């Protein structure tokens, strides 16, 4: 994974709460077996509306999404993160993220940064009155800056560490392979295995 330390890009105000992952990418776009190429499905239904924020300059080239609370609810589809990344987003700011979405983002290199809703409102106003304003998100300092706006954000320490160093989660876990072996030796013998048995 590419390390993430700081990012500066055009901020996009998305004035909606409860943006579920079906809105981020509808199910019909989930049929690909590759890990890239999902940008066409991003906000697919809304992008057919000319008024939608991503259909307007200069938001079209945005890379920092500033969203309402409860972003990424619903389906666990990591394709939602891939669609945002493939489109060009590196950061999503919101007062509340759904747990699975936030986890997926951290694994796939998209920063899901938790801000106060009052800061989100200030950013929305700034980005709407001065379209094209660049937002700088610094993961080392855990700060968001835009013009004279500055605020802090929250992110899980483990996610921050892995993003800063671009670490591979699986490789990190495999350092503990011996402990996993040991745990497996001690598991109860009646626990189920999926090996087919007669009649199934």
């Amino acid at each position, binding site marked *: 994974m590419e390390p993430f330390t700081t990012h500066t890009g055009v901020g996009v105000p998305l004035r*909606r*709460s*409860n943006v*579920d992952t*079906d*809105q981020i990418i*509808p*199910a*019909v776009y*989930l*049929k690909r*077996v590759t*890990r890239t190429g999902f940008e066409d499905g991003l906000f697919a*239904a809304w992008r057919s509306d000319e008024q939608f924020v991503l259909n307007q300059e200069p938001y079209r080239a945005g890379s920092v999404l500033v969203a*309402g*609370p*409860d972003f990424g*609810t*619903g*389906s*666990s*589809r*990591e*394709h939602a993160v891939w669609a945002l990344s493939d489109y060009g987003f590196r950061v999503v700011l919101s007062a*509340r*993220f*759904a*747990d699975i979405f936030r*986890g*997926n983002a951290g*694994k*796939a290199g998209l920063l899901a940064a938790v801000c106060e809703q009052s800061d989100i409102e200030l950013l929305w106003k700034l980005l709407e009155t001065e379209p094209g304003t660049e937002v700088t998100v610094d993961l080392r300092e855990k700060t968001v800056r835009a013009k004279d706006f500055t605020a802090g954000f929250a992110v*899980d*320490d*483990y996610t*921050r*560490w892995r993003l800063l160093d671009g670490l591979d*989660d*699986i490789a*990190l*876990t495999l350092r*503990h*392979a011996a*402990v*996993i072996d040991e*745990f*497996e030796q001690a*598991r*109860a*013998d*009646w*626990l*189920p*295995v*999926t*090996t*087919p*048995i007669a*009649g*199934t």
Partner: protein
Amino acid sequence: MAKTLAEKVWDRHVVRKGTGAEPDLLYIDLHLVHEVTSPQAFDGLRLAGRPVRRPDLTIATEDHNVPTVGIDLPIADPVSRTQVETLRRNCAEFGVRLHPMGDREQGIVHVVGPQLGLTQPGTTVVCGDSHTSTHGAFGALAFGIGTSEVEHVLATQTLPLRPFKTMAVTVTGALRPGVTAKDVILAVIARIGTGGGQGYVLEYRGPAIEKLSVEARMTVCNMSIEAGARAGMIAPDETTFAYLKGRPHAPSGEQWDRAVASWRELRTDDGAEFDAEVVIDADELTPFVTWGTNPGQGLPLSASVPDPERIADENERVAAEKALSYMDLTPGTPLREISVDTVFLGSCTNGRIEDLRAAADVLRGHRVADGVRMLVVPGSMRVRAQAEAEGLDEVFLAAGAEWRQAGCSMCLGMNPDQLAPGERSASTSNRNFEGRQGKGGRTHLVSPLVAAATAVRGTLSSPEDLRTPAAAGAEN
């Protein structure tokens, strides 16, 4: 120290306590796999030269994409076909057991695991699907994961995770006849909101929960994610043990006795503290339906479409306005007057045998209303076979409903079972998001009983309305 159910199951699975920034490493007992969220995970393993660590704790089924008619033919949509074929190749290459389309054990992943007896109390269960919370009905800690985590579990059989906070959802009293598990969970979500459970595992408890069958408990736990909670759990009891006994993968003989002894310890200790608590009175619940575009936007069927003007919170008011515009509903319209084009009975929420029986009981002797189509999609081929053995298929067909093969179907419309733009459904599934059942489609979430009654009358209805047609309007 007194512990909650969730904490007990968590503690039994900690491979390594977290240190510094690293969270606990949790062992996973059962990994369920399907075609949509796994191809990129298997690709990742191939690229890194890693095997599946425990194929014997992994099982796959085809569910999201599969058509529910003509399953003896190749899948017509070439992209869906490629995805299903990719799962078959990956399972063959990595040695994972697969139940493909047409197989007698094929079905929705969350219906298949429990009916095989693979889902057991006190286990950890994951799947690249948010409705994995379903399995919490057995007292398992079960939650949905993304594709990166799917790859992580395939490679290591573990996940690095921070402990969840705990929330008790206590349902007191007793459900009235005609009020179901679906109504309970829709009422819970309406109460705590779609974000209310974020960061929590919900433990459903209290007399009304204890009286539920295991299948009904699965309906409740299934929609925990719709309240924002990654997992929902119910302490296992005699009902759970009776459900499991004799299932293909349940322990037997002397192992059964030891398993049950271990399962009996899986209860929240007296004096254990939850981080949050919600109490719902079952006596007050009536059939519940959604009017908006998230599962928290629900009301009793006897209510009317709400007026956004009266919602104080600005975010919620804007959300309600957008929802009513999308749903094409006018504030003040009685919910019972909303007419539908389609009724969908199925999904991992309500596609089990008890759901089909309940709907068939309502439909017996009635016909689906003119201009309404009703799709009945069993959650698995085993459910389908059972329903046919009981003659339920004949009840559905005689009423004018369509009797389909097993799969996720119109819950998310990845296969051809979709709503057309502007069409409205009463659906026993779990999500009423914009476009969820087809672009421009409008969804009302309902119980199987409400689904069946709605099919007969053509407007949102409960079985009561069929018995006393004249009372429908008067009841408000």
